[in-house]
């Protein structure tokens, strides 16, 4: 059982790290702000989500697990909002020019 859980942790964290890598490559390589935002949100939401999912079996109890899930939810919320605000600023600037 323990070995299964460990395998699950390694797989999920590696998958999460892959999304971070992909998001970072996108951030560096994509041509404009909107596509870069598209790339980086995948890292925040899916990457962090998978890493936290993978770490859940290692937590000492339900309270700690709940704290980690709240961290993911808060990062998702702030990430989504900040992305919207940046995209909005880009659009408004585009309309002015």
């Amino acid at each position, binding site marked *: 059982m323990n070995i299964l859980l460990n395998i699950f942790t390694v797989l999920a964290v590696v998958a999460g790290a892959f999304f971070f890598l992909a998001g970072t490559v996108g951030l560096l390589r994509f041509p404009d702000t909107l596509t870069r935002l598209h790339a980086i949100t995948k890292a925040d939401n899916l990457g962090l989500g998978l890493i936290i999912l993978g770490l859940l079996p290692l937590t000492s109890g339900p309270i700690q697990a709940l704290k980690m899930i709240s961290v993911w939810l*808060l990062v998702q*919320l*702030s990430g989504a*909002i900040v992305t*919207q*605000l940046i995209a*909005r600023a880009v659009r*408004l600037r585009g309309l002015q020019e």
Partner: protein
Amino acid sequence: MTTSLALDIGLAGLILAIGIWTVFARDSLAAVIGFVGYGLLLAIIWVRLSAPDVALTEAAIGSGMTGMLLLGAAARLRPAGNQSTRTSLGGRFAIGVLCGMISAGLAIAILFPPESIPSLAPTVMQNLAPSGLGNPVAGVLFVFRALDTLLEKVVLILALLGVWSLATDRAWGGVPGLRIYLEPSNTLTFLAQLLPPVGVVVGVYMCWVGANVPGGAFQGGTVLAAMWLLVMIAGLRNVPRIDGFWLRFLLVIGPVIFLAIGLAGFVLADSFLAYPAGYAKPLIVAVEVALTLSIAVTLGMLGAGPPERSRHS
């Protein structure tokens, strides 16, 4: 062992790279963003050094709050264009020499440590029990070095006075010019309605657990200040006038209660800032709660900037 060593070397390399990049960045906004990233990495390094209290403060104050103040300063300087006055060659030389001396001093201290490194940690742990606190950092802040903590809070208010004194005569006593988002934005309003209930709980929690685990007045107060600023920036609540009675009351309540308990120590416990036996913990918690409020209001007003609109308009 090797994995953590690789992680540490990677962190140290990253922070050096960001530091150098920040110094050489031409654009002030880019430099500030580099500084914020630098602060967050520094917080991770403090965690690696098993100092979560310092890490929390660095992330909240060093990176978050200072970053916001610097962003505001960079945005205010922006209309002035790039006609920034360059420091003279002599001045830059002097700065370089002083920075080099500090770096050399630190390097010598780390590379050639004394035979036995002086530490007060065992003494702190021996004498912590009578205070009723579980967190040795809170013990040092509120019992052994309470005077430093008190002066720190007074310095914070002096900093706010410095910001306020940038106001023009006409705007004195008026409303701070926090107008970052001129156009109303539904997205920001949504965040400012959704996040503060969560943030206030987190801030109060950080202040409350500070007696026993990492946390405390400064970290909790910063989170509360951030929530207040978010609500003000989104335009859901007005920025208060700086001559309001309640605003000024909340600004000084923390230091005043701290000072009053300190003075009472002369009578009740025979020295300044000493706590009567058996009452240390409740008194410290009372001081921490009042300080959290004062820190939150002070940092919030620091973020809001100097008054710009007169109270009559």
